[in-house]
């Protein structure tokens, strides 16, 4: 890749710098807010004007992971002194811990469904993209357009047919159902992105491998895949982000068993009061996997966004 060779003037550099920093501040603000709120006490969280400095507490995180019940002074006296730091935090609110919350479970559901659908999407997407890129598929252009056309409406527009279909098939509130759904939504994007990446790999590599004694599948597996790794990684991020953050279908199609974290987090607010710190804590933890995944693969992601724009 090559970039512009004329170096910008000092004034342009300053201007660009300020613009980038300003933009970063604006986009990071909600993130900072959420992370900070997770460590606030409930009263600090809703105080107006908002508090920038506050005394951090783990109350939100403890509340996120536990279920608690309010008890009378007499009962409290009978359960003895709290032995752990989180018990002390709960006791200070005049409550006792009755058990773990379902957040951990919901979070794991998100991991299974998010990563599961991403994996399935990559396997199917790479195979389809390879076929579209390399073979003479009848009506190739029509098929590709047809695949893309599934992205031309918001997926939620077909929520009712999908809901009815899932109910008939017994896929409601199952891992399989959610994995299939997210895979179906993501597949068109991944086929198109991956086809672009595979198109860029010269076909001679595979032909050389074919002549050297590999079968078509071995050539694909040992020659094409390593070179498409960048593209696969960046496509995987796009797919994971969608599946991870998806809310509407999760609300509609999951409840007791396969519910993911996004529809669960709002329920933390609960009936007892507005426990914003616990909600913020839940959101913060929920953000982490995608954030880490994205930071790890950010170089690939950047290339993924700009691919095709630069002739190498």
């Amino acid at each position, binding site marked *: 890749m090559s970039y512009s060779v004329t170096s910008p003037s000092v004034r342009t550099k300053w201007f660009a710098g300020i613009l980038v920093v300003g933009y970063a501040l604006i986009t990071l603000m909600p993130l900072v807010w959420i992370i900070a709120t997770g460590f606030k006490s409930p009263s600090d969280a809703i105080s107006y004007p908002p508090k920038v400095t506050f005394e951090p507490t783990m109350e939100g995180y403890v509340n996120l992971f536990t279920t608690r019940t309010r008890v009378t002074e007499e009962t409290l006296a009978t359960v003895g002194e709290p032995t752990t730091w989180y018990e002390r935090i709960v006791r200070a609110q005049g409550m006792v811990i009755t058990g773990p919350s379902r957040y951990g479970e919901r979070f794991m559901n998100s991991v299974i469904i998010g990563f599961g659908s991403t994996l399935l999407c990559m396997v199917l997407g790479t195979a389809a993209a390879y076929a579209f890129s390399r073979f003479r598929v009848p009506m190739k252009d029509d098929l590709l357009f047809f695949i893309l056309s599934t992205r031309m409406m918001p997926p939620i527009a077909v929520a009712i047919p999908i809901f009815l279909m899932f109910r008939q098939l017994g896929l409601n509130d199952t891992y399989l159902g959610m994995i299939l759904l997210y895979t179906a939504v993501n597949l068109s994007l991944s086929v198109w992105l991956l086809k672009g990446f595979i198109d860029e790999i010269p076909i001679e590599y595979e032909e*050389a491998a074919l002549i050297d004694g590999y079968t078509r599948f071995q050539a694909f597996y040992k020659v094409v895949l390593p070179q498409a790794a960048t593209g696969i990684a960046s496509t995987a991020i796009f797919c994971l982000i969608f599946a991870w953050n998806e809310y509407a279908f999760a609300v509609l199609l999951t409840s007791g068993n396969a519910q993911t974290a996004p529809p669960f987090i709002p329920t933390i607010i609960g009936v007892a009061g507005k426990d914003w710190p616990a909600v913020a804590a839940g959101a913060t933890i929920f953000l982490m996997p995608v954030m880490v995944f994205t930071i790890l693969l950010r170089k690939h992601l950047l290339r993924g966004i700009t691919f095709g724009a630069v002739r190498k």
Partner: protein
Amino acid sequence: MAQIRIENVRKEFGDFTAVQSSSFTIEDGEFFMLLGPSGCGKTTTLRMMAGLELPTSGQIYIDGEEVSQKPASQRDIAFVFQMFALYPHMNVGKNISYPLRCQGVSKSEVKRRVAEVARILAIEDILDRPVGGLSGGDRQRVALGRAIVREPKAFFMDEPLGALDAEFREHMSQELRALHDRMGATTVYVTHDQLEAMQMGDKIVVMNHGVVEQFGVPQAIYDWPATKFVAEFIGSPSMNFLNFHAMVGKGMTSVSLSGTEFTVPEMREGANGDLIFGIRPEHIHLDDASSYKGLVIATEYLGTTQIVTFETPNGALKARLASSESITVGSQIGLTFDQRTITIFVAETGRALLSAGNEGALRNG
């Protein structure tokens, strides 16, 4: 080491026919050129021999075995690509040893053969380098190394010098030819460069529009083109074509161009109508006594020779003459033709008429 025989091979891509019923034989140990303009079907023909495309119909024999429907991996051949197709994630040594490792050859044997190939190609000092930083020539050597290391029955090369700059091509083409002479393996080489084909090839097939136009040794093809296309494609400047209308009979030894009689090789077949008188630029001589006059319209100085363009009653003519001849643009000069090398074509089909000169040379499969 093997003979390769192509019989009535045809390839269609949907409605498009890339190769129409080609037949020719490549003898064991030959350096064989597939020559033609882009889109003529030469690369498709090569790819069918290699097994990268399967022919729609026809047979391909390698070493006597019919392989036309077999995958590339079962044909025991090596292919050198124009863009080298070195694996970017492997170093030079790994690239060369890759085909051997594919076939599960033992480690010590792999090492021995890679060392030998590196010695032949003089690339021993770069075996540990990544392929990314190599020059075009070294990349091509590595690609050759990957082909040689397998000791295959035949080498197929698809414009292997196409990606190199002109100066280096010359050098690599000599190196390739020397390598072939040392190893003696059958080599099929695709090129669109007629000079390259003439320089390097033992035998040439000239293709156009998916049809084999002519097949033979370079000199026969140059001297006795079977079609007007071959005459035009080979040689620079190409053969001259003078249009005339006449009846040519079997056994005739001269034809008349605008009233001047020219001796030609004895005709072995006759034709009537629009004909073309084909003469190579170097076979045109100046002769004041000749009644056939040309008007000089341009001269190009090329050092030892010059190319002079004449306007004649039968069309434009380019002659390659010694630089010592002083020629003025605008003058009328008498011309004679070297009678041994004249070919007469039928204007409509472009086919050369059989004569005493070309009857042994015209083969097109």
